[in-house]
């Protein structure tokens, strides 16, 4: 499934509530508009809470709010049209002022790929939903993200540091991490 059709099917999942009634009429109009020229609309009519973007990356990027993260992920896996059952890369990223997690998903049947990004601006106590009950591999990856970025994951079985020792203070991969002893800044 091409990125365009993917984007279309996913965007229908999380319609913006207050735009609900207005959306239906626009929805009809939007569907046939996409199917005609079959190219991604330059500025997608933001009919859902998700932001889609395609530039600067080979795959379709979805930026999602932390609240809808878990439901989106569950839908992405269970919906047989998308069927993203292979989470091959889960990486924590420090976007300067926000801390975020990037999920790379692939479907073993349709062989298409998707990138889901979630950002939290709160740097003292960042909290996200854990997806380790959807994909088992997330359990270790999320422990690694907690270890290096300090992002806590709700209902994660045993969230403790994976690589560093228990009493390590600070989160090394954050941009503002200072360690004079063993960090040689060239």
């Amino acid at each position, binding site marked *: 499934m091409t990125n365009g059709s993917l984007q279309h099917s996913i965007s229908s999942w999380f319609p913006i509530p207050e735009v609900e009634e207005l959306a239906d009429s626009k929805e009809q109009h939007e569907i046939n508009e996409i199917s005609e020229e079959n190219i991604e609309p330059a500025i997608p009519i933001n009919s859902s809470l998700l932001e889609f973007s395609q530039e600067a990356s080979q795959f379709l990027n979805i930026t999602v709010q932390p609240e809808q993260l878990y439901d989106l992920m569950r839908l992405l896996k269970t919906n047989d049209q998308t069927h993203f059952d292979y989470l091959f890369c889960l*990486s924590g990223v420090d976007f300067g002022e926000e801390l975020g997690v990037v999920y790379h998903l692939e479907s*073993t049947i349709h062989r298409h790929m998707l990138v889901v990004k979630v950002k939290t601006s709160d740097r003292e106590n960042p909290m996200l939903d854990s997806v380790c009950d959807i994909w*088992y591999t997330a359990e270790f990856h999320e422990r690694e993200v907690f270890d290096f970025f300090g992002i806590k994951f709700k209902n994660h079985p045993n969230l403790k540091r994976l690589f560093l020792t228990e009493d390590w203070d600070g989160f090394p991969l954050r941009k503002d991490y200072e360690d004079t002893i063993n960090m040689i800044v060239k």
Partner: protein
Amino acid sequence: MDSTTKNSNFKTEEYQINMGPQHPATHGVLNLLLTIDGEIIKKVEPDLGYIHRSIEKMCERDSYQQIVHLTDRMDYLSSNINNEAVCLAVENALELEVPERVKVIRTIIGELTRISSHCLWWGVMGMDVGALSTFFYGFRDREMINDIFEETCGARLTMNYNVPGGLMLDIHPNFVKRVKKFVAHFKTKIPEYDRLLTQNVIFQKRTKGVGILTKEDAISFGASGPVARASGYSCDVRKYHPYSALDKVSFKESLKTEGDTFARYQVRIMELWESLSIIEQLIDNIPEGEHRVKTNAVIKLPKGEFYQKVETARGELGVYIISKGTKNPYRLKFRSPGFSNLSLLNHIAVGGKIGDLVAIMATIDLVIPDIDR
């Protein structure tokens, strides 16, 4: 503390044992906290970080050429393929067209690295299961490949032969002759591997039906490489996202469905044959041409995100670069195959004996620096 058999009156007690950072079966500094009841394993909890060098933090301050040399130290058994991964990521980001000759040489050297990694794996697998002389037969064949690499790249293990834009030096004049001699020699040796270990009844009893991994679990645990292909999940990056000269080569993907330790063993032996056939198809027609394309000294990737997948001997290595246009990446994440393959260890080893755990770990083929990065 539930006693193992309901009506037995003697009470067994579980105790914790440290298959510690220094243990013959962990091939590196991996510490497994085993909870055992007598000989039966109740829980396996890996404790990582003994060889963590924070490669990803170093990448944020190094230039792209310097990052390539760091990847040698991650999965040191497929160091060439790791180098190739970062070089491809940089070249695709810069839309840099690499000459045909470089692509063919990179594929040949990649397959040679895979064979040398599987040779070491086979030797050490035999040693873990108890047959000590397989180690020397495996290393004899690996030694021939190391000589090829030493002659062409100058180093045996951490080659750093690929650079963004091509190869550091052109191949050595008698590279083709040595590779052909090795291929001819190794074709007679794989049947010997089979006669010595594969059909041995003790080996089959030790590995058949041990540590069964179903296809859904393999996908859900993010397994890749021979571990996943042994459970029927076809995920060969060389097939689905071919890179370098892999699209011009025809080879079968080695798949099995049983998912037990013996299937993982057989998948790797089939992969040896496939890699040999790939090398044979390419070795005779290495196209002439430049061995390197001039890139400017300081490589600056355009703004954006780039992801490059490569099939190493252990599975699918992913290089995820977020670049802000400066000379070193804003964030660089290595998706290491060993990391996900290790996470399924607890799932398949529970209920088995210590001997089974050692056999399972041997077929998952762990390289600890690849996990700890």
